[in-house]
């Protein structure tokens, strides 16, 4: 296991209502940490807090010892809702992070080409978002997040909007991309199967106000078989944990 990269130590209130309570965990370098929680438990709030887009009302998130901020750290984010920028071609969209970080044209070109290939969007560089499918839009979002070679990659239910089949294909895809280019990932989802399929480690959250209910290290060999006994056992265990009434 890699060294500790991100240290999370937060409680968060919104309009006086407690959303997150005593959420303490660390994210290790190059791990694929999945956070599972029921709908409406503050997962998106947590993602925004982790990315430094929102400040917690209590505690803080640090990365390499510094308070996390997109201005200092090289963070990427894959959003839950479709996030393609309508007036940009896929190419311009994918390299937007490099543009913001003022990378030199050569890097932009190299990195852009590499990630487009990585997510299999070659030939679509000049398309506009309205011309492509939902699954492809999510690939663009992933390519865009990967393009800046982030130290910390957050994914907030990135496949939540996709149909079951596309979702499954995207899970395979994201694993393929991650294995080719290891990144420190925090992946947020409400889907336990998805969590077990992707994670090196899973953190389970409770209902609102969210607390950490459990933590699992997933050591099943990849590519994981969704129907193997060890996979199903793991899934069952986490499902049970989620159903425990407090």
């Amino acid at each position, binding site marked *: 296991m890699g060294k500790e990269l991100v240290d999370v130590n937060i409680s968060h209130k919104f309009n006086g209502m407690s959303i997150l309570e005593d959420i303490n965990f660390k994210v290790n370098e190059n791990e694929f940490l999945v956070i599972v929680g029921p709908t409406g438990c503050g997962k998106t709030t947590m993602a925004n807090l982790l990315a430094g887009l929102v400040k917690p009302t209590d505690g803080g998130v640090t990365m390499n010892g510094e308070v996390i901020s997109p*201005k200092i750290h090289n963070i990427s984010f894959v959003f839950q809702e479709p996030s393609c920028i309508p*007036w940009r071609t896929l190419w311009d969209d994918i390299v937007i992070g490099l543009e913001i970080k003022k990378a030199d044209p050569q890097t932009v070109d190299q990195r852009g080409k590499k990630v487009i290939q990585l997510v299999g969007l070659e030939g679509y560089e000049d398309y*506009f978002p309205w011309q492509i499918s939902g699954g492809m839009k999510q690939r663009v979002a992933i390519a865009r997040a990967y393009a800046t070679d982030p130290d910390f990659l957050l994914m907030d239910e990135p496949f939540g909007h996709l149909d079951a089949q596309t979702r499954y294909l995207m899970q395979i895809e994201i694993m393929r991309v991650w294995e080719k280019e290891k990144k420190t990932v925090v992946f947020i989802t409400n889907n336990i199967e998805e969590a077990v399929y992707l994670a090196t480690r899973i953190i389970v959250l409770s209902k609102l106000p969210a607390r950490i209910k459990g933590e699992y290290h997933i050591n099943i060999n990849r590519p994981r078989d969704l129907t193997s006994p060890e996979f199903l056992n793991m899934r069952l265990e986490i499902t049970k944990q989620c159903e425990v009434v407090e």
Partner: protein
Amino acid sequence: MAFRYQEQMKTIFYNIVSLIGVAVLWSLFSWWQNSPFFPSPRAIWVAFVGLVSKGDVEGIGLGLHIWKSLVRIFAGFSAACVLGIPLGLLMGLYPKLYNRTRSVIEPVRFIPPIAWIPVAIVLLVGFSRYAFLIWLGAFFPIFITTLLSVTRVNPVHINVAKVFGASRLYIVRKIVFPSVLPDIATGMRVGLGIAWMCIVAAEMIGGEMVGIGRLILKYAELIRMAEIIVGMLVIGIIGFIMNEIFIIVERRIFRWRSQVSID
């Protein structure tokens, strides 16, 4: 592609049919009435030719009338854009600025340009009177659409930039501005329409005896309907052509939008 072409031909065909239909009905009506107050399309055509070749009662040609009006519209409309777009952007980006001055801005919006005529006469002279009245009409649609559009920028697009550490300036230039641009164009198109609607009112008080609005007023005093209708049609047709040009330009610029539904 062939299908789309066919569809376009059909559209053009039916538009021509509609035009002819209206002309026929109009002819029948004026024939039935047989009155100088309902000139036939033929009489209107004759009046048009007369205005072009010999000019109006003072010998001013139709071309000059049109030109003068165009210049005035352009002046008022440009002023509306130059003020309305930046102000809309500014107040959209700083909603407090708008919210705290709302009671000043909003009531002004409901005062019709015609109601401003006495004020314009007292305070302004010459060309500025025309420009002011047209500006009044065009400013609010441009300002309000820009303002509202800024508040409706998709927050995800802003967050996409934010998470990469983008500056505020970058977000305004590269996210907010391109995303409100189509709405600004729509506001401009609406503003241009209203600018044309204000031309008669503006030329009532401008003093100069030239301009399409003035032409209508001149012949209104003489109760010569054919020339009045020529003036009306000229306004309608020029407005229509400008709007069509606008739409074509919009389609070109905003090619990234899916089926641009602006017609």
